[in-house]
């Protein structure tokens, strides 16, 4: 691997990875006495699939929450496209093109699959409330245009047949997929996935892995994901950050991480998966 500072690198399978999109610098996050993240730095590069792994309670979800603006770190900086990001509300982060899914599914249960996916387009829809009240001109046009984009994503994730089904009626695995569809609908620059395969069976995991690879491949979306299944992580990711008790104990390609003694001790040795 050739990791030149700002040029990016080429992966083993020949994909070109670009410059740094998101950089976390010396992030520290405390909840009262609990230190969830301790002085962690790492970066996410354009077009790569970046994994964050670590045992339960290591602070992985907290890290995603810092990126998406839910948690405000006591210390450290977040740089987006090289610029220091001021403190932002989650909806402002979303408007910058960062989408995510949650460890516990966070869909809109009262709405259909299609409507859920359409909510992913809200950051792109800006017709005035007056135009919508009359449903003429921009409002109607905008609805149709964005519907087309959503339909493409629905096709892509193979959920056409449940388009009009209320989300509350779906099984767990499909809900995870709909949540991914909603995140994709916003055409994010950076996609954060918090345990996209948790609680899935092998088949569902394979489907999901394929979708994640396809998203990265077809749309060139930069992806940061948290995952417990080491097999999946090793297959999918270009680079891996390993966390334990809020500290970063490893960072590198899957191979480098796998052979890192600190990681073996702290993580692989502890939980046998």
């Amino acid at each position, binding site marked *: 691997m050739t990791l030149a500072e700002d040029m990016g690198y080429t992966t083993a399978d020949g994909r070109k990875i670009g410059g740094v999109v998101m950089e976390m610098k010396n992030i520290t996050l405390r909840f009262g006495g609990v230190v969830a993240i301790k002085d962690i730095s790492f970066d996410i590069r354009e077009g790569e699939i970046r994994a964050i792994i670590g045992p339960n309670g290591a602070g992985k979800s907290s890290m995603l929450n810092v990126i998406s603006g839910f948690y405000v770190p006591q210390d450290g900086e977040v740089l987006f496209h090289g610029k220091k990001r001021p403190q932002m509300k*989650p909806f402002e982060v979303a408007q910058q093109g960062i989408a995510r899914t949650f460890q516990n599914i966070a869909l809109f249960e009262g709405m259909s699959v299609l409507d859920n996916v*359409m909510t992913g387009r809200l950051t792109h829809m800006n017709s005035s409330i007056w135009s919508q009240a009359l449903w003429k001109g921009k409002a109607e046009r905008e609805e149709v245009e964005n519907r087309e984009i959503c339909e493409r994503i629905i096709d892509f994730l193979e959920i056409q047949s449940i388009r009009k089904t209320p989300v509350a009626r779906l099984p767990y695995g499909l809900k995870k997929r709909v949540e991914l569809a909603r995140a994709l609908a916003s055409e994010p620059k950076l996609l954060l996935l918090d345990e996209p395969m948790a609680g899935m069976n092998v088949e569902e995991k394979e489907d999901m892995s394929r979708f994640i690879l396809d998203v990265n491949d077809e749309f060139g979306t930069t992806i940061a994901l948290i995952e417990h299944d080491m097999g999946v992580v090793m297959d999918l990711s270009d680079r891996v950050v390993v966390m334990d008790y809020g500290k970063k104990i490893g960072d590198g390609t899957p191979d480098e991480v796998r052979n890192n003694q600190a990681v073996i001790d702290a993580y692989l040795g502890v939980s046998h998966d």
Partner: protein
Amino acid sequence: MFYREAGDFKTSYQDDNQTFPIKFDRYRYYAVLFAAFAVIPFLVNDYWVNAIFLPFLIYSIAAIGLNILVGYCGQVSLGTGGFMAVGAYAVYKLMTAFPDVSFAIHVVLAGGVTAIVGVMFGLPSLRIKGFYLAVATLAAQFFLVWLFNRVPWFYNYSASGQINAPVRTVFGVEVTGPTAEPWAVYLFCLVFLTLCAIIARNLTRGSVGRKWMAIRDMDIAAEIIGVNPLTAKLSAFAVSSFFVGISGALFFGVYLGAVEVGEAFGINKSFLVLFMIIIGGLGSIFGSFAGAAFLVLLPVLLKNVLVSGLGWPTDLAAHLEFMIVGGLIVTFLILEPHGLAQLWRVAKEKLRLWPFPH
């Protein structure tokens, strides 16, 4: 003719976005509109208009308004009576200050004033939710009634403390005052209801409506997809109060004609409209109509059957009404939170499969 969408394929997303995607529903909708605008006006008399049609039309507007806030955006409000009072007093002040301007314009402006007041009282919703928000809107209810009772400017310093609607016309036809014709007041309110319902339907199917529903279903997830909770909640308060204000203005100007605020717009009114949307169906425009129709018709029906028909004493019939409404509220809350509208949907789904249910 079978009731289903088979053979009625949508070839564009526009078609799929229609309010009534099934042809049969569409025809029924046109038939109802035709009857409401072109048939009923010729048939109505004073009794029908005052006992049934006016309250139904006006409460439907209020129910649509409240449904936007509670059913679509998930922000509970017990201040409907107070906001209707704002509409009523706003229209009264406008009517008396600018007698030459059309009453229709006054009604719309009164809705606008109520929208502004609604946004002010909606501000706490940014900090508090659920039960606490309900209590805050309850405070708004009592404050507004107190305000209109206490500040004589609002009732133009009249000795009785009441407000009375002077005679006003629209296109030369009287719509307020004791001599207004039944068909005229009926049509006037019908036009407002139709416009309000169309606007509500349009808003709830577009991006504004999705923002509201996102906030309702899960506010954290709504934020993560880029919904600003401030503008989403306050726009729901504004639109909701706009409709509620219009209904208050019509309730005072066209229906009652004279109003004592505590009596006409007290806490009972807040609960009545809330019950309408619970029974009719939260998050459904059709449900707002159904709930309003139900709670307007029920007392009329009970009175006719029990008092006039069976000779029951009036107060006994009134008590029975309370019990029926109370029982229904509990039943709907437990068994069918989406109300009559959901029962209607289920019936339609069954009908779509008929006559081969398997």
